[in-house]
């Protein structure tokens, strides 16, 4: 074990710093468009204005962003090196410089296209997605198909060079602002559940699409219902083979869970709680002196750190070319459970101050804590619920038998 960065990495860090000093000035930083106080949704993508795009192009040119994507599709095509990646992320964060965009498009669709897309699809979509010029939404869930995703019913019938799509998607995050959707649709209703599904890219401006916002418990409306009424989608927008959509979607889902399990959000919220505990009074003395609160803070800090070190371990396994196995399967469950515990501590600490809704100027930290608290439930559900993750850990990680009922319906869980 060696937690130092070797000299060549320290030199690389210097290089990144110099680049940042030259290309992302104090003026650039200050020119940030107003921050979206929601800032918590899964589709969060930071700064895609002109300055940010100009900077990103320079950073790609230098080999700092989208290292796993070939140059001809808009990436910087660098050898795999998780340590350099960690250094880049750290330094970009410190300088508040626009890094890689995350969210459905860059984090989920791009890897899927790289693995399964046609040359034409890669050329057409990847570059613009990485720069935030195309926004994507993920059209998987349906009213009757959530955890049991393979029972989806939205139909796509072949008509010449087009698929004609009719059906209903739900919980589609950011569908109202997205330009395109990657969707799972049923192309062969007579085949067994898993074999009749295809993966389609659908232009959200196509005639016949209706998007209806769904208000969440947080009061915001990030997700939506999407209705398809005879929407015509060119056959060239099929990713992978017809009927192979289930296999194509596996690669998307894996990336989704890693995105959700990361430790950053909990670390940020816990930092806020600590600050709050030092600033607030509880029964006439600084809250941080309350023994129960202290114990809970330390307990959660331990878990937040464990999550961080767990990330180091996964990174090392990756660098060594080892399979993450069970260690990789637990990230979403651990991270999302922890997110809830941390946010609940914040709410307990706020006590009656937590009655104020986000946006109310008197609300502590602009309501960040209550937003985090509510979102911690969303995160528990999105991308496969906690119980589905437990099934995955038990069956694929510990080798326990499949649920007999699930086995009978031949369903793979989300």
């Amino acid at each position, binding site marked *: 074990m060696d937690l130092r960065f070797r000299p060549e*990495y320290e030199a690389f860090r210097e290089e990144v710093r110099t680049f940042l000093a030259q290309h992302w000035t104090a003026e650039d930083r200050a020119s940030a468009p107003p921050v979206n106080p929601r800032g918590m949704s899964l589709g969060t993508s930071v700064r895609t204005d002109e300055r940010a795009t100009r900077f990103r192009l320079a950073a790609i040119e230098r080999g700092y962003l989208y290292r796993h994507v070939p140059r001809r599709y808009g990436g910087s095509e660098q050898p795999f090196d998780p340590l350099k990646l960690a250094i880049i992320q750290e330094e970009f964060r410190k300088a508040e410089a626009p890094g890689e965009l995350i969210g459905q498009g860059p984090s989920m669709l791009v890897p899927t296209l790289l693995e399964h897309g046609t040359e034409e699809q890669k050329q057409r979509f990847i570059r613009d997605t990485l720069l935030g010029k195309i926004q994507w939404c993920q059209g998987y869930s349906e009213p009757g198909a959530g955890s049991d995703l393979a029972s989806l019913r939205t139909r796509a019938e072949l008509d010449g060079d087009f698929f004609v799509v009719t059906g209903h998607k739900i919980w589609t995050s950011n569908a109202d602002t997205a330009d395109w959707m990657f969707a799972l649709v049923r192309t062969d209703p007579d085949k067994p559940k898993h074999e009749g599904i295809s993966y389609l890219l659908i232009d959200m401006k196509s005639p016949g699409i209706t998007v209806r916002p769904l208000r969440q418990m947080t009061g915001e409306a990030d997700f939506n219902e999407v209705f398809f009424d005879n929407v015509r989608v060119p056959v060239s927008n099929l990713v992978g083979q017809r009927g192979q959509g289930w296999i194509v979607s596996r690669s998307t889902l894996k990336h989704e869970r890693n995105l959700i399990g990361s430790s950053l959000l909990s670390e940020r919220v816990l930092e806020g709680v600590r600050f709050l*505990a030092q600033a607030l009074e509880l029964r006439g003395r600084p809250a941080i002196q309350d023994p129960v609160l*202290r114990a809970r*803070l330390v307990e959660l800090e331990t878990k937040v750190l464990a999550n961080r070190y767990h990330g*180091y*371990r996964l990174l090392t396994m990756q660098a060594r070319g080892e399979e993450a196995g069970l260690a990789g399967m*637990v990230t979403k469950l651990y991270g999302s459970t922890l997110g809830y515990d941390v946010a609940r501590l914040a709410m307990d600490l706020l006590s009656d101050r937590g009655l104020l809704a986000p946006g109310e100027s008197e609300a502590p930290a602009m309501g960040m804590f209550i937003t985090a608290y509510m979102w911690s439930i969303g995160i528990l559900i999105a991308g496969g619920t906690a119980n589905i*993750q437990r099934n995955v850990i038990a069956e694929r990680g*510990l080798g326990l038998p499949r649920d007999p009922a699930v086995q009978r319906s031949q369903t793979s869980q989300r």
Partner: protein
Amino acid sequence: MDFGLSSDQVLFQSTLRRFLAEQCPTTRVRAIMETETAHDPALWQGLAELGVPALIVPSEYGGAGMELLDLALAAEELGYACTPGPFLGHALATICILEGGSPAQRERWLPAMATGAVVATVAWGEAGSQWDPQSWSTSYDGSSLSGQKLFVPFANVADLIVVGARRPDGSPGLFVVERSAAGLAIQRLAVVDMTRKVQHVRFDNTPAIPLDGSAALQRAMDAGCILIAADAFGGSRRCLEMAVSYAKTREQFGQVIGAFQAVKHQLANMACELEPAMSFWWYAAHAYDHIPDQAERHAAMAKAYLTDIYDRVTRDATELHGGIGFTWEFDLHLWFRRAIFDRGFLGDAHYHRERAAKLAGW
């Protein structure tokens, strides 16, 4: 940056695991723990031949010169196998002498401790002291010790005892007492964890040799927290493995119980707790040697965190075995008892969390 074990460490661990599987299956654990001492010299000798007591002893004293992480990996395997014997106290006494001994004192004791020929232990506990050295009442008058220590592991087989006591100026310090010393009385105690017996030790003007204990005491306590965390992890992992394999074979309602979701989810939760917890104690052990400003706090957090998990995992695993899990015949209670020792010895989870809070400046 590399956050993982070296191939040497992996090899050492698997060698030790194989040795313990052969030499110390639970039938042997039971036989040893039923004896008066719970110490099997042959097993101790076997561990010594594998180099366990020599791991962190510097090479100039005949040791392997390794780090605390290596020693903690050994502790993990001993916890996994629920091995009885004086490992923990011996390791802590070794660290006391290593950190607080003069060159002459090190030269005198460490080589024999490295080979396991001399068995040592630590006497730090006192009734009501909550493991806080500030409240020790055993005292040293300049040449000898007087007072009583509680919870001294394997005092009855130890050749050397490193005692925590007040110096003449009132500050806590460390003192070495040899087995032959006058005025030493050891009283047997009935204990929950039969694999690690503890005794009551009385000192009545007992001649003792002082170590330069100021920094050594904290170092040894930190090491103790980390070794216990590793032991707790090893035990937890073993209990999870036992529960998983039982769930794959025991049938009820016409199918193996592992197909029932309630059972699966309980097991999945255990696995989900253990994976990041392992990364945590690895980090704590690494910090002990390489990141001094984080060492003490991480040790305290590791002790509290891992022993909490050990408690839950042993309970859940026992419950998942149904009635058989509650019998004396079945092995699970060996770990269940060990988890109780790990939680209580050197201070409970509350004590260590409060310490971690103080160390953060709160």
